[in-house]
Every structure is written in structure tokens, then in C-alpha cells.
């Protein structure tokens, strides 16, 4: 299977790719609500759904988890912050790690990982064009909101995220090739990565804008034809109903 990078769309012919984005979008919002308003049982249900989604979308768990690596440090920091600061029964004498802290830290890390995996699964199986059309469809009753513009801004943001990660990977490789890891100071290493990353990201964004302008970019564009099948309705009702059930029965 091809390498999966964070937030990259993967072209496949699967049921998850064909699932109407007008159904996928509210389900995604419901899943995020479930993530932050439920405990371990809700997270377990969500993790099972993610695994099933990955299998249906033909994205392997290993590949999905590789997408977590760039954010591994952030997740670890969240876990440690909880593990070291939440008061409770000490696990190791002399260290401020508590059992309650480990549980809370574990849940936080699980939540953060699930958010990233959910985003990866969604963006890997939903093209920006389909997402844009769904947003335009939802905002059509509110003409004052300029649905086309909002949809384009969301689409561009999502399309820039993988570019930023790709650029970060390229710059990291260039720094490693010049032995950056031998530089002891974290601030120096972070600065060496951040400065070129920011400059290159803005340059790429500028180039993208020029390429869009050169091709007559407009907020009001032809939208993709969306079609909800009866199977889409069934999935939305079943999965959405289960998610609401977990929210009600196992609130966090």
C-alpha cells in the first residue's frame, strides 16, 4: 500500500470514498463531540469505528498511525502534563506520577490521537471538491454567509496542511544531513526548523494564490453533483444513533 501522509487525500474506489459528504460532515462533527464528551467506553466505540473506517477506506492502521508521528511529541507532552500534575496515589516513590494522572493522561493522549486519526480518515477519503460542494449545500439557505468563499477557505486550509508537513519533512532531512541533532540546544534546533518552514509555507501559499488567479479563480464555481444513496442514509442513522447513545449513556 502506498505511504499515507497526514491529511493527504487517497484516491480509492471504496464505500467510504463514495459516502455522501453531506452525511460524512455532520457525522464527523458528532464524532468530535463524542470524543470530548464521553469516557473510555465512548473512546473505545470511536476507536472501533476508526478501525472499521480505515478498513473500509482501505487505509491500514499502520499507515494511519504513521500519520501520528509528526504530532507524537504534542501527544506525549499532553500525557506527561496530566501524569505529573494530577494529584492522587503515587505510583513510584519519589516521582510525582500518580495513578489518577496516568489515567487522565492516557485518556487525553487517546483523545488527541483519535482526533488526528479522525481528521486523517476524513481527509483521506473526502476530496476537497466534494467537501466544498457539501459546505456550499449546507450554507445555501444563508446567502449572507458567502458559502462559496467559506468553502474555498476551508478547502485551501485543508490542502495547505499536508504541504506544511511535507515541507517540514524536507527541511528536517536537510537539517539532519548537516548533523543538526548534534546541536545540544533545543531552541537552536527549533529555530533552524521554524524559520525556513514559515518562509517556505508563505512562499508556497503565495505561489498557490498566483496559480489560482492565473486560472480565473472565483468564489462562485461549478459545484460537484452530490448523490445520497439509501445505504448512506442507513449508515448515518446507525452510526449517528450509536454515537448519540454513547453520549447519553456514557457521558465523560
Amino acid at each position: 500500500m502506498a505511504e499515507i501522509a497526514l491529511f493527504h487525500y487517497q484516491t480509492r474506489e471504496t464505500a467510504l470514498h463514495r459516502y455522501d459528504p453531506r452525511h460524512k460532515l455532520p457525522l464527523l462533527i458528532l464524532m468530535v463531540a463524542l470524543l470530548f464528551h464521553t469516557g473510555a467506553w465512548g473512546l473505545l466505540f470511536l476507536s472501533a469505528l476508526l478501525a472499521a473506517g480505515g478498513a473500509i477506506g482501505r487505509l491500514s492502521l499502520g499507515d494511519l498511525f504513521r500519520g501520528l508521528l509528526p504530532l507524537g511529541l504534542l501527544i506525549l507532552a499532553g500525557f506527561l502534563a496530566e501524569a505529573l500534575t494530577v494529584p492522587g496515589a503515587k505510583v513510584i516513590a519519589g516521582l510525582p506520577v500518580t495513578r489518577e494522572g496516568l489515567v487522565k493522561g492516557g485518556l487525553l493522549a487517546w483523545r488527541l490521537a483519535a482526533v488526528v486519526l479522525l481528521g486523517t480518515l476524513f481527509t483521506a477519503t473526502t476530496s476537497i471538491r466534494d467537501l466544498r460542494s457539501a459546505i456550499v449545500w449546507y450554507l445555501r439557505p444563508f446567502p449572507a454567509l458567502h458559502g462559496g468563499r467559506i468553502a474555498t477557505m476551508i478547502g485551501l486550509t485543508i490542502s495547505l496542511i499536508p504541504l506544511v508537513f511535507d515541507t517540514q519533512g524536507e527541511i528536517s532531512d536537510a537539517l539532519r544531513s548537516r548533523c543538526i541533532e548534534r546541536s545540544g540546544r533545543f531552541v537552536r534546533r527549533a529555530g533552524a526548523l521554524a524559520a525556513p518552514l514559515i518562509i517556505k509555507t508563505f512562499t508556497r501559499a503565495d505561489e498557490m494564490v498566483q496559480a489560482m488567479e492565473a486560472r480565473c479563480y472565483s468564489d462562485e464555481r461549478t459545484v460537484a453533483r452530490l448523490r445520497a444513496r439509501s445505504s448512506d442514509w442507513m449508515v448515518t442513522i446507525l452510526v449517528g444513533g450509536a454515537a448519540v447513545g454513547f453520549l447519553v449513556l456514557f457521558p465523560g
Partner: protein
Amino acid sequence: MSLIEVQGVSHRFADGTIALQGVTLAIADGELVLLAGRNGSGKTVLMKHLNGLLRATEGRILLEGRPIEEDLPGARRKIGLVFQDPDAQLIGQTVREEVAFGPENLRLPAEEVARRVEAALSAVELSKLADHVPRRLSGGEKRRLAVAGVLVMEPRVIIFDEPFSGLDYPGVLQVLREILRLHTEGHTIVVITHEIEKILGHATRLVIMDGGCVVGDGRPADLLDRLEAHGIRRPAANGQGVAGMTWLR
């Protein structure tokens, strides 16, 4: 009447850098113009003026006798740009979406968008890769995809900015054949490059830029001896004169 007329165009950037100085140039329908010059000579800045991406500090640009500012979307439909870095031009997540970006901006009906996309992909022989992710294509395929993204707008003029940079030998041949095919089909072509040995034999005209000015404009054979004074390597003659200065033979 010329198709494009550049009349005394100058461009000064906000930091004071003068990129173009009184450039005057006319391009006729059906020409294959080679615009050559060393790095920083103003070639790409001039290209961006032709499509209205940059506005002249002085002077004006006419397309079919009308200033391009009067109808920028129309000018952008008629003058297509293929950027130097194809990755910077790729917006769609699949090859098909990438090509559809332009006609969707024109709000063409979905059926017309689909018809144009199929035709453009077929023209550059990328139909089989329609559902592929653009960033995974080879360098030559990405350039051809960028061409399809321009062709789908049905332009009269196509401007290629450094179309051969970063390509291996087969990639150069693919892109060169594509440029010549488009010219044969009636498009007016402007190729901006300093690698002139790859295409000079096919150019109907050579324009040399240096320091933001046009310093030479005429038949390629008449300007060969002036190339190196302006930082461009003179292609080696192989007994066929200018006609032999191409990578296709």
C-alpha cells in the same frame, strides 16, 4: 494587428527593485517565441504581466487591441501560464480535479467541465492517470498536467516558464513534443528559458532580455552571436545551423 502588444512596460517592486524597464514587444498570432535571458533578467516578471498577475508601474499591455485590465478574466482565459514549478500550480487532489479547476471557476455546466477535462487529459495523454494524486506523478507528467490545466481553458496563447528545468532527458522530450504539438495545432507559444539549445531550432523568433530590458529581438540565426554577452550559452552548431539546435534530432 498583433495578438499581444507590450507597450513601454516598466515594473518597480515595493522595495525599489526595478524588474522591467520600458519593455516593448509585439507577438503575432501563431508565433513560437523564445524569450531568453540570464537569471533575474525580468523574463518571469514580464510573463506575469501578460496574464495580469502583476500590474505595470508604467506602460500597458494590449490583447487583441484592448488593455488586458478591461477584461482580466477574459485575458486569463486566452493567455494560459504554465509555471516553472509545476508543484506550485497543482491545486486539485486528483489529476481530474486539477484540470477541472479552471473551467469550474468559469462556472461552466458540469457536463461541459467534464467534456473539456477529458479532452485536455487526452491531448496530453494523461487520461489513464485521471484518478491519480498529482504530487505522485513524475516531473514530465506534472508538466503535462499543468499544460492540461491551461489547455482546458481553450487559450489562444500558452506561455511556458522554464518548461525544461529539473527534467531528465525523457521528460524534456515529452514536454518539447507537447509544446511543438500545441504550436502545430495553432496556439501561439511563448517559451521562457535559458536552456535554449533544447528548442531554439523550432523557434520562429528569439527575444533576449537583460537587466529588465529587451536587448535583442529577431530571427534566432541573427542573434546567436549576441547570446553569450547576455549570460546565455550559445548552443553548439552541429553542421545544421539553427535548425539543428533541438533535443528532438
